C-alpha cells in the first residue's frame, strides 16, 4: 500500500514519455477489475451461520483498537484538567482563607499572611470595563453581519473577526501600549481596552452563531406583520438569542480574566493597596500578581501566587458553569 503511490509516479517519470509510460501505468488498472472479480468468488455462503466471516474479525479488531485509542485520548484530556485543578488546589490550600480574599498583601513579599484583595478587585474593574466596551460593539456588529450586511460583506467581516481572534494577545498589548501608555502612564483603562479587543471577536462570532440559530421562520413571521426590520430584530430576534449572547459574553469574560500578556505592559506597576479608578493608574490584577510573585523566588510569595491562581481558576470554572446554565435556559433550546 505504501509503495504504490510513492513508487509508481517515480517509475513513470523515469521513463521517457514516449517509451510506453502510459502503457506501464495502465497495467495495474487492468489488474484491478480482475482482483475485484476474484473477491466476488470469496464471498461467504450467505445462507451459512451468522458467525463472523471474511475479514470481519480483522475489521472488528481495528475498530476496537481505535475505539480504545479515542477513549484513552478523551480520558487524558480530562485528566489534564483534573491534574491542574488538583495541583493548584493542593498548593493553594495553605494560604486559602477568607482573609486571603479580603486583605492587602504584606508590604514585604517575603512575609507570610496577607491576601490578594487589591488584585481581585482590580481584575473585576478591568474586566467589567472591558465587557462594557466590547459587548455592545460585539453584539451590534454581529447583528449587522446576520441581519443587514450583504452576503459578500458578511463573509469579509467574518474573516476579519477571525483574524482579530487569532491575533496574539501580546501584540494586542503592544498595540495598546503604543496607543495609550507611551507618553502617558499605565492604567487599568488601557488594560480594559486591550481585553476588550481580545473579547470583541469572541462575543461577535458567538453572537453571530446564535443569531443564525434563530429560525428564519421567526423573522419571516415578523416581516409579514408589516413591522420594520430593526423592530423585528429588537423585538423578536434579539430576545430569542438573548441566552446565547449572555453565554458568549460570560465565556469571553472568563477568557479575558486570565489574560496576562497585555496586562504586563499595561497594568503592572501598582501599589500594595486597593485602587479602583481605572483612569488614575495601573490597577493590581490577578494574572500580573501571579506572574510577579512567582518570579520573586520567595516561599510565601509562591504560596500566595498559588492561592491567586486558585481564585482565578475557580472564577473561570464558575463562569463556564454559569454560561452553560444560561445557554440551557435560552429560548432557542426549548
Amino acid at each position, binding site marked *: 500500500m505504501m509503495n504504490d503511490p510513492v513508487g509508481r509516479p517515480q517509475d513513470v517519470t523515469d521513463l521517457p514519455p514516449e517509451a510506453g509510460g502510459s502503457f506501464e501505468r495502465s497495467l495495474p488498472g487492468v489488474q484491478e477489475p480482475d482482483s475485484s472479480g476474484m473477491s466476488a468468488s470469496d464471498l461467504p455462503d450467505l445462507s451459512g451461520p451468522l458467525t463472523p466471516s471474511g475479514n470481519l474479525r480483522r475489521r472488528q479488531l481495528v475498530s476496537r483498537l481505535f475505539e480504545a485509542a479515542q477513549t484513552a485520548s478523551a480520558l487524558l484530556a480530562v485528566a489534564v484538567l483534573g491534574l491542574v485543578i488538583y495541583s493548584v488546589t493542593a498548593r493553594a490550600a495553605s494560604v486559602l482563607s477568607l482573609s486571603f480574599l479580603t486583605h492587602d498583601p504584606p508590604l514585604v513579599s517575603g512575609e507570610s499572611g496577607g491576601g490578594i484583595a487589591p488584585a481581585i478587585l482590580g481584575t473585576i474593574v478591568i474586566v467589567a470595563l472591558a465587557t462594557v466596551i466590547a459587548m455592545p460593539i460585539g453584539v451590534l456588529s454581529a447583528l449587522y453581519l446576520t441581519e443587514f450586511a450583504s452576503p459578500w460583506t458578511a463573509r469579509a467581516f467574518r474573516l476579519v473577526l477571525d483574524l482579530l481572534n487569532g491575533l496574539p494577545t501580546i501584540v494586542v498589548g503592544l498595540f495598546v501600549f503604543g496607543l495609550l501608555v507611551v507618553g502617558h502612564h499605565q492604567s487599568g483603562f488601557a488594560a480594559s481596552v486591550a481585553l476588550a479587543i481580545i473579547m470583541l471577536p469572541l462575543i461577535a462570532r458567538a453572537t453571530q452563531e446564535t443569531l443564525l440559530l434563530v429560525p428564519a421562520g421567526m423573522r*419571516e413571521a415578523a416581516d409579514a*406583520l408589516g413591522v420594520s426590520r*430593526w423592530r423585528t430584530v429588537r423585538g423578536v430576534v434579539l430576545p430569542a438569542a438573548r441566552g446565547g449572547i449572555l453565554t458568549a459574553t460570560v465565556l469571553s469574560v472568563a477568557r479575558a480574566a486570565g489574560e496576562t500578556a497585555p496586562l504586563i505592559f499595561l497594568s503592572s506597576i501598582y501599589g500594595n493597596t486597593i485602587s479602583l479608578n481605572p483612569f488614575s493608574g495601573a490597577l493590581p490584577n490577578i494574572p500580573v500578581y501571579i506572574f510577579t510573585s512567582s518570579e520573586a523566588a520567595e516561599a510565601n510569595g509562591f504560596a500566595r501566587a498559588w492561592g491567586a491562581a486558585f481564585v482565578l481558576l475557580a472564577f473561570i470554572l464558575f463562569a463556564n458553569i454559569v454560561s452553560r446554565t444560561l445557554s440551557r435556559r435560552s429560548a432557542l433550546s426549548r
Partner: protein
Amino acid sequence: MRPPDSGDLPDDGASSVRRRVRIHAAPLAHQATQPAANGRAVDAAPLVGPGGAIERRASTQGREAIFDVKDVSIFYGSSEAVSGINMQIHRNLVTAIIGPSGCGKTTFLRSLNRMNDSVPSFRIDGRILYHGHDIYGSEVDRVEVRRRIGMVFQRPNPFPKSIYDNIAWAPRNLKMKDGLDERVERALRSAALWDEVKDRLNQSALGLSGGQQQRLCIARAIAIEPDVLLLDEPASALDPVATASIEELMQTLKNRYTIVIVTHNMQQAARVAERTAFFSLDVSAGKRSGVLVEYDDTEVMFTQPADRRTSDYVTGRFG
C-alpha cells in the same frame, strides 16, 4: 440581503416615519393607518376597475378585484420559476392555488406581499396591482405592503414569547396600542382560540399544540387588521382535527378578509375555496417553470375543467 431593485425604495427602517406621505398618488407608500371606528384599519384605497376581465362566473359577479395580476413572471437568478401569470383575486372570497410540487405556487403567493424580496436573486416581471397600485412600484414600501397583506406560513412559527405578546407585539409596534387587551381578545376569538387559551395568556406560545400554534399565527396576522390574508399550506403540518378547525376558521374569516391559500391538498381546496387556480409545471421548450393552467370557480374546476391537465390532476392521475 436587499434585492437588487431596492435601491430606489424608501428604507423600511426608522426613516419610514420621517419620509411618510410624499407621494399622494401611491397609497402603498407610508401612510398613517389609524384603526377606523368600525375596526377596519385598512380600507380599500381608491380602486381601479377590474380592467376588462371576463367575468363569466357567478361567484365573482359584482366583486371588486383586490389583486389584478398582469403577465407576471418570476425569476430566481436566470431560472424562471413562474411565467406569464394573469389572474384576478376577488374581495371576500377564498381563492385556492393548487398544483403539483415545484410549480411555483408558493413563490407566486409570496410575491403578492413581497416576501420574496429577501431572496437575493429574486426578480419579477409584469405587474401585480393591488387596489390598482403596483405592489412593486418604485415608491412602494414593502413594510407597508405586508402591513396590509398578512401571511401565515406552512409551519407554525410563533415567537418565543407569551401567547398574549405574540398577538400584541405587532399592534404595539404599529402604534395600535389603544385597547390592546380587547384587540388581543378579538384576534384570538376570530381565530377560534380564545376559549382554549384565555386562562393562560401569559404562558409561552411554544407550549401550545401544533394546531393551536397555527391558529395563534392566524390570530397574530389578523390582530393588525390587514386587508388580505395569504395562507401558505397552513394545514400541511397539522393533523386532520387541527386541519378541520383551520378550514372552518377560513369560512368565517372570509367575511372580513380576502383569503388566498396555497395547498397541495385538492380536497382542502374543494372544501374551503370559492375560486381555484391550478398551477402546473411547463417543461416545454427546455425550461421548467410554473404556469397558470386554469382558474375558475372551484366547482367548475373539480367537475368540468376546461383543460386536460386540470382534469388529470383533480382526478388524481398525476401530482
